[in-house]
């Protein structure tokens, strides 16, 4: 009985460790390859340790890659942060209206909004391109931020959250003479922080990794976001320097790793929030 248990334990660890290595190895390889040259990257099994070309790859990334990786990180941060803040605010305000007020057409409006969730985002690509071009916003932050402020899922999530917000608390605040806006900003919002941060994280992630729309609307390398900048690296040279490309990918990954380590709990609950329906 005891030996059977031991075998089971060993099996458990072996399988988990295999999955663990498969998950982290490509990331490790990405960082390692950023320090290698093409011969090292495509040589026979040199994949385990750092190479000698870090400085050269870095120089090439800065001077010959056609992109500025730090500018791209800055662009991505500004765009993702702004659209996340705007999306969380507008979605929670709308969710609050649907949850706590009774007004004409509230049901119909909510159903139309949810119905738009069925339409895949690619449908709006061409009209948005025409619209944003007409507004003169090509190559600007606004071109990416404005469409990203719409979070239908956020409206849904916040409506669900605010439904269970105690009505007694709202009434007490009204008796104390607080206006409707004051109730929302000073009582409802501070008490809903966990859901708001969960929504913020998933909105941020979606904006951070979005490739297609920025690819279409940004054509000046100084306005590139990280995904767009990285996607151009392969095409800039006839004989690509693979180490340089991996170095760029590694540098671009660092902000997200830092963010995750700082906000680990919120990340998990953000991802889970989509499933607790």
């Amino acid at each position, binding site marked *: 009985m005891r030996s059977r248990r031991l075998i*089971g334990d060993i099996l*458990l*660890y072996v*399988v*988990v460790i295999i*999955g*663990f290595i498969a*998950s*982290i190895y490509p*990331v490790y*390889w990405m960082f390692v390859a950023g320090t290698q040259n093409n011969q090292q*990257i*495509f040589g*026979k*099994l040199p*994949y385990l340790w750092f190479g000698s070309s870090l400085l050269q790859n870095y120089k090439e990334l800065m001077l010959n890659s056609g992109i500025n990786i730090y500018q791209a990180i800055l662009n991505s941060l500004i765009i993702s942060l702004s659209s996340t803040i705007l999306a969380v605010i*507008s979605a929670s*305000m*709308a969710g609050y*209206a*649907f*949850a*706590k007020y009774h007004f004409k057409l*509230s049901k119909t*409006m909510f159903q139309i909004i949810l119905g738009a969730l*069925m339409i*895949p985002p*690619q*449908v*709006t*690509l*061409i*009209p*948005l*391109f*025409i*619209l944003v071009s007409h507004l003169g916003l090509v190559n600007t932050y606004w071109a990416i931020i*404005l*469409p990203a*402020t*719409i979070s*239908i899922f956020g409206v849904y999530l916040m409506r669900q959250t605010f439904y269970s*917000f105690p009505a007694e608390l*709202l009434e007490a605040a009204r008796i104390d003479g607080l206006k*409707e806006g004051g109730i929302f900003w000073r009582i409802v919002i501070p008490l809903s922080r966990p859901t708001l941060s969960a929504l913020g994280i998933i909105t941020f992630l979606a904006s951070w*990794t979005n490739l*297609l729309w920025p*690819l279409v609307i940004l054509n000046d390398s100084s306005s590139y976001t990280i995904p767009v900048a990285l*996607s151009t*690296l*392969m095409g800039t040279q006839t004989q690509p320097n*693979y180490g340089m490309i*991996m170095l760029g*990918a590694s540098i*671009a*990954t660092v902000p997200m*790793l830092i963010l995750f380590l700082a906000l680990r709990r919120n990340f998990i609950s953000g*991802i*889970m929030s989509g*499933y607790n329906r």
Partner: protein
Amino acid sequence: MEQTVKLSTRKKPFRPFKRRTPYLFLAPFMIFFLVFMVYPIVYALVISFSKWQGGSFQFAGLFQYSQLFQDSIFWQSLVNVLIVLVIQVPIMLILASIFAALLNSKRLKFKSIFQLGFFLPLLIDSVAYSLTFSFIFAENGLVNDLLGLVGIHPINWLLNPFWAKIAIIVAITWHWTGYNIVILLGGLQSIPDEIYEAAKMDGAGSFRQWFSITLPMLRPLLILESVLSIIGTIQLFTEPFVITGGGPGNSTLSPVLYLYQVGFQQFNFSYASAIAYALAIIIAVFSFLQFRLTRGGGRDA
């Protein structure tokens, strides 16, 4: 949920709010929603029924759609993503449910470190990991070197229509399995321990427990995950765009990549909009099937 609804509707506000208050709360969202979503959705439909002639869109009825219906490249792109999702989604969900169960095991130590590792792929940008996988699958890249160790001849992954799809499947699976593990772990933690203890009393081993308790309890989550994965795979773009460019010979072209090529390399906006709406219909069908499937699951549960 129903209870809380009743709670909030039963108690009328102490002092009636001004009539315009809810509309003020709705305004910011609705303005963005109308300008950047409703208007584009309607406009895309209009464009898809038109043709660009003499500097403006002219109504052309179903012209674009009849073109699309006969377009073998479009059909191939659809078949490509269908092949990918038929193979990839089941493999990913099986892997995710196995690893979620193992990571939830009481006998496993260093859980948080392991979980962190499985979560890591999710933090890597899609373009960054696609670039990494395109090098790993290069002709003299890591995968072929490892295969060489066990005596398998190198495979020309990215230049062979079949193996290029496999490379993309491996890449997507690597990126998304951890995400599904996180969701399933949440589901597992809500299964009461008593059920497992009762099963143990009845002499059920670990595998038996996994099949008879864990899997059925996770079924609603697994159905939801599979639907979201299917919809996500139909919208595949970044991986084929970066890893294969849709090649070789359109064998990894996805509908969205095709839409991108038609819309922004050939600048045929009408045709691209027709592709987008065809995609919307296909996704709607899958969503409808999900609705039926989850309803069915609720009935016999």
